Every structure is written in structure tokens, then in C-alpha cells.
């Protein structure tokens, strides 16, 4: 079965520092991978996707993600974190019935 794992419940980073939120996947066939963000008391918002092509995918709000086939990873990154980036981040994949399968989420806390 398709699945994604987010090994960190929380990531803390100082404003201005680079951030990484980790995701690994277990997928049969070509992986379709996504990142969504959930701000407090809001619904999820799509950040970016990897379907095929370049391993470095650029998304909204300055975020990017790196697809690494050998490590089966799809880590979310940003060169310089903002306090406003503090939120819950979900990695996701699609199964062969087009269902989105979400990871358990990682809370990003950016400190001033």
C-alpha cells in the first residue's frame, strides 16, 4: 500500500535559518508526492507536487522539495524561514484509486 512517513512531530528553527521538514515514501510504481500546509484553524493548502521531471520542485511561499529516489525521500525545504511559516505540514501521496494518503504531519515552529 502507498504510504508516506514524517519522522518528526515537530521541527524548531530560528527565523532566517534554512528549514527542512522530512518525508519518506513507500510507493509502488511512479510516486506522486505532495506537500500541504495547515495554518491554525484553517484548512489545508497545497504547496507543491512532484509527478515527474526535475528532482527539485518549487512551490508556493518560497518552499521547495527535493525528490530523492535512492533514499525514497521528498523533503520540504526553504532557504530562510519566516515566523509566519509556523504551521502544520503534511506530506502526501496518491494511491492507484486517486486517494490522497497523508502523513502524520510535522509541526514547524519558527522562532523570532
Amino acid at each position, binding site marked *: 500500500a502507498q504510504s508516506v512517513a514524517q519522522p518528526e512531530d515537530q521541527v524548531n528553527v530560528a527565523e532566517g535559518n534554512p528549514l527542512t521538514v522530512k518525508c519518506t515514501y513507500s510507493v509502488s510504481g511512479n510516486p506522486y508526492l505532495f506537500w500541504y500546509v495547515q495554518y491554525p484553524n*484553517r*484548512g*489545508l493548502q*497545497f504547496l507543491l507536487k512532484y*509527478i515527474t521531471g526535475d528532482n527539485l520542485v518549487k512551490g508556493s511561499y518560497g518552499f521547495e522539495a527535493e525528490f530523492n529516489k535512492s533514499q525514497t525521500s521528498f523533503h520540504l525545504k526553504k532557504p530562510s524561514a519566516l515566523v509566519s511559516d509556523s504551521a502544520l505540514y503534511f506530506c502526501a501521496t*496518491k494511491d492507484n484509486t486517486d486517494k490522497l494518503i497523508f502523513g*502524520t504531519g510535522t509541526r514547524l515552529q519558527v522562532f523570532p
Partner: protein
Amino acid sequence: DTAVSQTPKYLVTQMGNDKSIKCEQNLGHDTMYWYKQDSKKFLKIMFSYNNKELIINETVPNRFSPKSPDKAHLNLHINSLELGDSAVYFCASSQAPDSYEQYFGPGTRLTVT
């Protein structure tokens, strides 16, 4: 202009009651979804409709019954509410079932006492 809206935002009710949550999208999408997010923030799909037809029906108690009167609306009716139904319920939509991006509503926080 809210793309995906849900009502109510908060719902507090007692065990055994029946309640409904409404969802509307003004994006012209064909596909709509209901998700449940539990207290640990774990998010799981419950149902999906495409052009008013049910296409995904996860292992959900039959106390939960979705209804799609038209493409722009997907409502969720819950009978005989239980404590374990307490969660945040999110509606979402996408252009098609195989679209890569889904648009989520703000959520309905259901508390069953």
C-alpha cells in the same frame, strides 16, 4: 470570495443526536471530498463524489451518510453521534478525481459530549 465553505464552523452536540454539516464550492470543480482529522491531527479521507456520484467510500460507519444534491454541494449527515465522532471534518474539492491539487474548506469542529 471563499472557494470552499463549510457550515457550521463549530458544532457541539450530545451523544445520540443527528447532525449535518454542509459544504459548498464555487470553483466549478467536479469532485468533492470529506476528510476527518482526529485529535492527533491525523487526516483521512471518508468519501469522495464526482459529478454527484459516490466514487470513494472508505470504511466509515453507516451512521455517516454523504449527499450531493449538485456538483457544488456535498453535505455530511451523521446519525446517532458518538464520542469518537469528535473531530474536525474538512470538505475539499478538485477539478477531477485524478487532479493533483485539492482545495480544502476551513473545517467544522464537531464536539460530542
